[in-house]
């Protein structure tokens, strides 16, 4: 019943989305508002329908309906309730359905908030959003159906039984019976959730990523609507600014949480491996960041109209490409994507969407309808520095894309050799660009729109440069002697000091004007200038992250040691003593745990007890999948991070440990938090100016002529 309900809701969604596309376009072309309204209503209907489908699947997961093959593949009778919920997006079929649902939510929100205020754009925007939704729902319906069920087909003549999978009940005949498989057998053979996904991060990391990805459909749809309708004013930017910020916020959060998840469970002491899957999520973030800066140039100076359209297209198409690359198997091998069910359709959708949007852009451009209002820029102006900033982000995009996809694909297709590029490669090629980015981050806020004189800029740079120089001296004196590290820290610090100085200037100016105390002045300054000061706070977050990245990348220490009971390892200023192993512990969900007991001391004092462990997840086929869970002593200074090496012998008397000291790594998470707060402030609309009514004069007070 659940499967039928979910399937029906999915099919109706597909039909509604297609109808919405046709009705919206027809209504616009023929100027028939009834049709565009009908299209809008069909679009709004997709959200409750997809919610129904999602609830059906969730109910099946919680109710252990193992006849549904998705439930069978991602859960088993021992799976805790928490992971049954997260299993909703734990594999391809369920995550595609979840993706479609979040897309329908964004679409409904965009329609509800803008239908009345943007009558010329909305029907086109609706059509674009629904066309995209129809594609993804179509993938779920026809290729990766989450409601496929197991059946047993019995030949009544021979008694032979065959297992089959089908969403709908297969037809029976005179010689075949269709039976539901034994529930007991299904439960016994259920796979359970992938152990790598059994982490608290699973509740939030994928949903945040999906919200980020699908959120960019709104600015994309409005940009396409602007191109299609010819309404190329600032309307589409004003409408979509907060949607873009919101999508960027979720994507940032998703990337940070993914890094944290990798740090906790992947067992290599790091948080970002430049893996193609990670890069596929990072690429739209780069384009989105460039877009957020670049639209300001169009708003303030009427410039970069074509470029902004290109950036919106690039951002969303990189979302689709990233989804295609990770879900289709392209990353494993350029040939395997065609063997994946969704590979070819996704490739065709991505390429046709990119082609259509670029064609629309070039069409308007060739008609002279995207001419900049200003052609000139001053070399020392904010718009110039924003253009350079965009060049840096675009170059980062190209470098990372080339290393993740371009070079491996070209190598395999044309040279016949598979290659993969590792952390060292990506660090080398991106480090100079990040350095330029931080330099621009430092200088740009001090420049004015239009032009700035070198003298004025020099004056504004004095304090930040002075503070940076002082920081350099302190770092040198305290032992930071690596030129690369010193240079990196100083660049990042410079960007931070600029923001600090700008904020202090603003607070002091406000205090002089209003006599407020510093805290109140700062509160009101942020309140009135949310976009500006929220943006400054985001920059502070990026600065703090940068310090954490430099520390944990350049100064990480690691060692691997086999230790006997009672042995002490001196490493990184700490003393780690191995006290014993609690082997064969059985958890509630059936995992077998080997837990090491370690004491951590510093300067002779025991400061923590660490319990790294190895979990063995027993599979239905009798095999066991190991997973290592690290233990860490975390401070702002560093993480002392210990892994139990699962592939070496773990006996009552000895075990092998991999130990990392990761300096400043917790600044990465702290900086992320600051970035999120800054983005929320920047996204929040400023309060509307209060109207003050003048008192109405009475007739007694009016002088008679």
């Amino acid at each position: 019943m659940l499967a039928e309900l979910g399937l029906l809701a999915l099919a109706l969604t597909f039909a509604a989305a297609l109808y919405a596309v046709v009705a919206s376009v027809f209504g616009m072309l023929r100027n028939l508002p009834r049709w565009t309204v009908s299209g809008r209503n069909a679009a709004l209907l997709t959200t409750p329908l997809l919610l129904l489908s999602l609830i059906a699947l969730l109910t099946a997961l919680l109710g252990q309906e193992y006849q549904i093959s998705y439930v069978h593949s991602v859960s088993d009778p021992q799976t805790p309730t928490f992971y049954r919920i997260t299993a909703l997006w734990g594999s391809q079929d369920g995550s595609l359905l979840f993706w479609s649902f979040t897309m329908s939510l964004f679409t409904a929100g965009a329609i509800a908030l803008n239908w009345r205020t943007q009558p010329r754009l909305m029907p086109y925007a609706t059509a674009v959003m629904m066309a995209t939704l129809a594609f993804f729902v179509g993938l779920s319906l026809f290729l990766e159906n989450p409601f496929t069920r197991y059946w047993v087909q019995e030949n009544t003549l021979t008694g032979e039984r065959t297992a089959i999978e089908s969403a709908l009940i297969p037809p029976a005949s005179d010689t075949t019976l269709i039976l539901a498989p034994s529930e007991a057998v299904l439960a016994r053979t259920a796979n359970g959730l992938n152990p790598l996904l059994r982490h608290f991060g699973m509740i939030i990391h994928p949903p945040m990523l999906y919200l980020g990805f699908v959120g960019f459909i709104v600015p994309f749809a409005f940009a396409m609507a602007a191109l299609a309708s010819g309404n190329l004013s600032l309307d589409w930017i004003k409408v979509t600014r907060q949607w873009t910020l919101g999508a960027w916020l979720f994507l940032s959060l998703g990337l940070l949480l993914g890094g944290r998840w990798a740090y906790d469970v992947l067992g290599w002491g790091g948080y970002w491996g430049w893996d193609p899957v990670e890069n596929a999520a990072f690429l739209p973030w780069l384009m989105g960041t460039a877009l957020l800066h670049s639209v300001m140039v169009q708003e303030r100076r009427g410039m970069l109209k074509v470029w902004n359209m290109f950036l919106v297209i690039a951002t969303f198409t990189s979302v689709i490409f990233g989804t295609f690359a990770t879900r289709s198997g392209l990353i494993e091998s350029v040939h395997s994507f065609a063997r994946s069910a969704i590979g070819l359709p996704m490739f065709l959708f991505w390429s046709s969407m990119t082609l259509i949007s670029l064609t629309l852009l070039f069409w308007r451009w060739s008609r002279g309808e995207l001419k900049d209002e200003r052609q000139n820029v001053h070399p020392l102006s904010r718009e110039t520095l924003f253009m350079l900033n965009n060049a840096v982000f675009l170059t980062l995009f190209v470098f990372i894309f080339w290393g993740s996809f371009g070079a491996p694909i070209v190598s395999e297709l044309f040279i016949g050799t598979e290659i993969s590029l590792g952390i060292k490669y990506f660090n080398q090629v991106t480090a100079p660009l990040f350095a330029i980015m931080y330099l621009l981050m430092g200088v740009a806020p001090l420049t004015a729109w239009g032009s700035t004189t070198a003298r004025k800029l020099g004056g504004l740079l004095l304090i930040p440069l002075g503070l940076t120089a002082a920081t350099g001296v302190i770092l040198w004196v305290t032992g930071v002697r690596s030129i690369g590290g010193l240079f990196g820290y100083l660049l990042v610090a410079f960007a931070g000091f600029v923001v600090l100085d700008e904020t202090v200037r603003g607070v002091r100016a406000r205090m002089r004007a209003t006599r407020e105390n510093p805290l109140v002045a700062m509160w009101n300054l942020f309140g009135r200038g949310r976009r500006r000061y929220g943006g400054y706070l985001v920059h502070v977050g990026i600065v703090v992250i940068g310090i954490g990245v430099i520390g944990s990348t350049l100064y990480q220490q690691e060692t691997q040691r086999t230790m006997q009971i009672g042995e002490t390892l001196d490493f990184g200023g700490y003393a780690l003593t191995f006290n014993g192993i609690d082997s064969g512990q059985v958890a509630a969900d059936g995992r077998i745990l080997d837990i090491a007991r370690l004491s951590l001391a510093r300067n002779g004092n025991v400061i923590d007890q660490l319990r790294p462990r190895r979990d063995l997840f027993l599979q239905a086929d009798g095999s066991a999948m190991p997973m290592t869970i690290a233990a860490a002593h975390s401070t702002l200074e560093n993480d002392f991070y210990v892994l139990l090496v699962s592939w070496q012998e773990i006996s009552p008397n000895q075990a092998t440990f991999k130990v990392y000291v990761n300096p400043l790594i917790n600044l990465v998470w702290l900086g992320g938090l600051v970035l999120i707060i800054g983005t929320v402030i920047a996204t929040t609309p400023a309060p509307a100016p209060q109207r003050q009514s003048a008192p109405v004069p009475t007739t007694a007070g009016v002088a008679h002529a």
Partner: protein
Amino acid sequence: MILLLAAMIVQTQEVRVITDDDVNAVAKQMFCLECENIPLDVCGTQACIQWRAEIRRQLEAGSTPEDVFEYFRVNHGEHALAVPRDPLLWGLTNVTLWVMGALALILAIAFIVQRSRASRTQAVTAIATVDLPADYLKQLEQDIANR
């Protein structure tokens, strides 16, 4: 007796003491060949355990890390290494990239310079059409130069 002593010394010199850290330093720059983009030093599959053992054996026999990379490259392909060694592939991954980067930078600077020149050309044209006394123009130019 002297020959026996010499042989013992040579044999001792051939087997270096290689730590887990020495092995991991090399394995870190290689990939597991069975898994997707997993560095060799953190992979727990049986194949990876054997490959790390091979790395240890070669290092103990006196091979340098470069020798080890070359061995795996020849026997398992460029895919085993985190950075390709083959000149053509190295060019594909590195040279192409820096060429693209330099091009992007040149294009960006050229765009900005072109837009700045447009600004100055328009300003000069505007001034040239105004009919001003010569000594006033001279004073104006002097003031601009002093600014």
